[in-house]
């Protein structure tokens, strides 16, 4: 199972300058753990000490904010696209 992950500029130093990645995971939390396995340190940037996604970070599965889905428990299937987007923009 492969999920496409879009990585914002501030995290690309950790992903060897890759803006898109292929990864896997049965849900978003799982995906973050497998990103951590490939790119050590990335989880700490994505999540706070309690393991929750950071306050100023939005995560989308197929363009839908995971807060309108099941949060980090949102399930993923083959071909899904997960976007990691800094929340501070617009207005």
């Amino acid at each position, binding site marked *: 199972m492969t999920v496409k992950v*879009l990585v*914002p*500029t*501030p995290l690309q*130093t950790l992903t060897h300058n890759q*803006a898109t990645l292929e990864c896997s995971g049965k849900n978003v939390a799982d995906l973050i753990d497998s990103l951590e396995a490939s790119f050590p340190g990335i989880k700490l*940037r994505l999540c706070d000490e309690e393991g929750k996604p*950071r*306050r*100023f*970070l*939005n995560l*989308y599965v197929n*363009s839908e*904010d995971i*807060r*309108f889905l099941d949060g980090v428990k949102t399930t993923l299937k083959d071909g899904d696209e997960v*976007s990691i*987007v*800094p*929340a*501070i*923009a*617009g*207005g």
Partner: protein
Amino acid sequence: MTQAIANLNQVSSTILQALKCKECGTEYKLAATHVCELCFGPLEVKYDYNALRSSVSREKIQSGPNSIWRYREFLPVATDNYIDMGTGMTPLLRSHRLARRLGLNKLLIKNDAINMPTLSFKDRVVSVALSRARELGFSTVSCASTGNLANSTAAIAAHAGLECYTFIPSDLEAGKILGSLIYSPTVMAVKGNYDQLNRLCSEIANTHNWGFVNINLRPYYSEGSKTLGFEVAEQLGWELPDHIVAPLASGSLFTKIYKGFQEFVKTGLVEDKNVRFSGAQAEGCSPIAQAFKAGHDFIQPVKPNTIAKSLAIGNPADGIYAMEIAQKTQGNIESVTDQEIIEGIKLLAETEGIFTETAGGTTIAVLKKLAESGKIDPDETTVVYITGNGLKTQEAIQGYIGEPLTIDAKIDSFERALERSRTLERLEWQQVLV
């Protein structure tokens, strides 16, 4: 294509120091970047307030241009090559008729419905953002907009000779679409709501080297809203008001009016005072009002459904900061229905002769709600911010206003129509009394 020239941001300035993360304090150079690489918190411009204090005075400001650039030292540009289209210094009107209607004794209206060049407060932020964009070497600028921002970016980019791409929701009011197209930018009408196109633009900003005024240029852009605080203080005779009421979309404007007041205090231009900050949202998109009422310390995003399209941001970037300001200043955040918004637009027009758009209608409706529920002291000096022009959102009030009386070019036709209109007026009065 744009070529950002990295070294231009090194132009020396003793007042402008760095970009600083509002959350963790990490500092960055004054480049086109808007989020902290460590915690994703927002970056803000850091100034040397001691240097600023010694370089500003009331007299110097008063003898400056009749525009936002009279506050140039407080704005994040490094050179005097800024774009001045006469933006800012809009009237601060003493309200009599609206004030009486609401039972308020000291109500003032800051009227940005006639701001230049595109009739909304966005001209302030865009003037600053594009001035900085030019300093940073961008030749292409862009924005994610609910309409007014796109109008402003397109117009000021045209004036400055910058290439322009704007992104708007595809269901915007005709006046706001036309109000961009006339300046010949490339307009992308995105099938989706503002939050969806904002996410899209964040992704585009990653890959295209454009100056997005409210994404990678956001730390500079947002500072332009401070001038709504500065002007009110200056127009009140170098005093702060007691209470302000302003609309809330992303929350940025609200937080920057607060910052503007604080900076005038820090630099000795005005006496310190606790100014109460109250915010206005439309019920169909009220994530900040909901969090405020529930006492949450987080904002739960919503999917917008309101006629106040310029306030339809379901996932507000500065929502949490706006809420904190309302809380700590003993202000309020209220929401109103679409019907109340329409009535707000009409009330302002009929009592003060100011035609505002739906955002202004929202703000007036919330002002009314707060006044009626005793949340504004009648003797407080209260400033209400009107941020956009009604001619841009004509659809919202179609069917809620009268129609012209079509008559023949004959005196008897006129007399009959006059009699009829007076009868209609009487009927309306009777309805009100019932």
